[in-house]
């Protein structure tokens, strides 16, 4: 049986450095398919979909709200060609009702241990319109190594440098943060993978550089310590979201190869400044994530926050405007107050204002968002700051003997395309 698995493309934010990372959701899903299924995977961000490819059943995996409209278009084309299409992934869960209009079936929830049933229904012509396992999570023990063999590796390479591999060590989240839907999607209970299972998967990943995509590793200190301790011998270098602000954990994280972490910067307090310093004290870099447009922010607050970022020693900063994703408190609040004016999911990219902020106009918030990016990267560009972090990781790898030089054969390629060089050929 031939299963065509597709990850739709989306429009990248203008003016920012674009890196195409190998997507995680589709290959985690592919690992749940029975062995008799032959999977062919296309990530449309780096490759072209062949709508005439020989296949029996089509799966569309979507992570972002900005993918859903393209996902619906792709499904429509395949269905016109007589193929049945099933949707899954995070944004299928967030946009389930609409997605159902373009699907033969939608799968809600986590796929481990469920796909034999779905495929059996498909084979016998009894495919259900909805497979709903939203609150019936499979045992976390069932989560196995992702099918990274499906990647066309050369397409995730920029001028000979392989992009990081994505990996997850847990699911669910015990926090219910204002703009976040993770607790709705993965449940409000933190479900860490057994450390030996996580390590078993890490050992299968050839890439030494990883992005641990878990929402927050800081949810169970004992597990976090055990995980980091077990990771030390692997000599991986990794990026992650927040880790616990605890000297013992920071020390273990550093030994385990913490490269840099994403840390929310939500005010101008000494707490934030000191927290960033503590990461740095352990040799861990920090990319600040700054959410603009919350109801408690005035224009002055945002301007002060931008100034503060320039004072503290952040390695990188990522600015976003509030995107009211469905199934978040932010969405509920704005719906009740009738403040959402743009319902085009392509605009829910965390860079475009789609609602009326409380303390300024939407246009002014958009200007402040642009100003924040420009101000932070005025003296040193995003590429330059990234290069500094990259140099740091290369030096570490050289020290611990894991450094792999860039692939010279791909030096003129960026994500599968030829590098365009702006060479001045004038005779002057």
């Amino acid at each position, binding site marked *: 049986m031939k299963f065509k698995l597709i990850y739709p493309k989306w429009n990248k934010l203008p003016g920012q450095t674009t890196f195409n990372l190998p997507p995680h959701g589709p290959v985690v899903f592919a690992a749940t398919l029975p062995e008799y299924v032959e999977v062919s995977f296309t990530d449309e961000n780096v490759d072209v979909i062949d709508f005439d490819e020989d296949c029996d059943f089509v799966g569309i995996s979507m992570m972002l709200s900005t993918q859903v409209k393209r996902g619906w278009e792709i499904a429509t084309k395949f269905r016109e060609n007589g193929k049945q299409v099933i949707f899954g992934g995070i944004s299928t869960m967030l946009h*389930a*009702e609409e997605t159902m209009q373009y699907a033969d079936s939608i799968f*809600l929830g986590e796929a481990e241990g469920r796909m034999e049933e779905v495929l059996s229904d498909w084979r016998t012509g009894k495919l259900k319109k*909805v497979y*709903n396992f*939203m*609150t019936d999570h499979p045992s976390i023990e069932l989560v196995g190594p992702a099918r990274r063999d499906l990647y066309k590796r050369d397409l995730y390479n920029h001028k000979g440098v392989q992009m990081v591999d994505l990996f997850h060590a847990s699911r669910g989240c*015990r926090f*219910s943060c*204002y703009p976040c839907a993770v*607790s709705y999607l993965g*449940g*409000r209970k933190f479900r860490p993978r057994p450390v030996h299972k996580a390590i078993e998967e890490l050992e299968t990943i050839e890439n030494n550089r990883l992005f641990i995509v878990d929402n927050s590793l800081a949810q169970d200190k004992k597990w976090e310590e055990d995980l980091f301790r077990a990771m030390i011998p692997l000599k991986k270098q990794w990026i992650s979201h927040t880790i616990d602000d605890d000297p013992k954990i920071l020390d273990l994280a550093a030994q385990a190869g913490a490269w840099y972490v994403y840390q929310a910067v939500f005010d101008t307090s000494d707490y934030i400044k000191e927290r960033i310093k503590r990461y740095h004290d352990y040799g861990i870099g920090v990319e600040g994530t700054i959410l603009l447009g*919350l*109801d*408690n922010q005035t224009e002055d607050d945002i301007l002060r926050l931008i100034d503060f970022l320039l004072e503290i020693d952040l390695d990188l900063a990522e600015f976003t405007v509030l995107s009211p994703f*469905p*199934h978040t*408190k*932010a969405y*509920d*609040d704005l*719906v*009740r*107050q*009738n403040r959402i004016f743009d319902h085009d999911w392509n605009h829910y990219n965390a860079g475009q204002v789609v609602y009326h902020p409380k303390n300024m106009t939407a246009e002014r918030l958009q200007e402040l968002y642009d100003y924040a990016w420009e101000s932070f990267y005025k003296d040193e560009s995003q590429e330059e700051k990234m290069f500094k972090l990259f140099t740091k990781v290369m030096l570490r790898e050289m020290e611990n003997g894991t450094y792999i030089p860039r692939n010279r054969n791909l030096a003129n390629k960026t994500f599968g395309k030829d590098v365009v060089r702006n060479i001045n050929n004038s005779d002057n």
Partner: protein
Amino acid sequence: MQTSFNNIDEIFEFKGLWDIHSKCGLKIHKKDNKYIVLVSELYQDNPGTSVTQASCSLAKQICDAFQIPMNEIIYIEHNPGMNSKLSFYNEEFYMVEFEILENEFVNPKWTQLSKEQINFFLT
């Protein structure tokens, strides 16, 4: 069985989107021939759909469970305060007005209530 509406104060279990098991706080009392229905969001203690996302369906499920005529409810959503310094976790109350179409609630419209207004309804 006739319910005494001055003592409904419970955790109400309901079917959220896709029949997801969901929970909210529920208080009902009768005032001037209307049923004042107060649903409270439980945040982390609600395993499923929020009261706002489920508003039409939740209101109908409450009417069905307590045999309340659909045109006799005053329906109020309550977002409890979260003891946070962030203003969007302050306590808020919204009256939700629905249209009734083919025995279903549709087209919800929310109006925020002041403390005086909520006191009027709840006392």
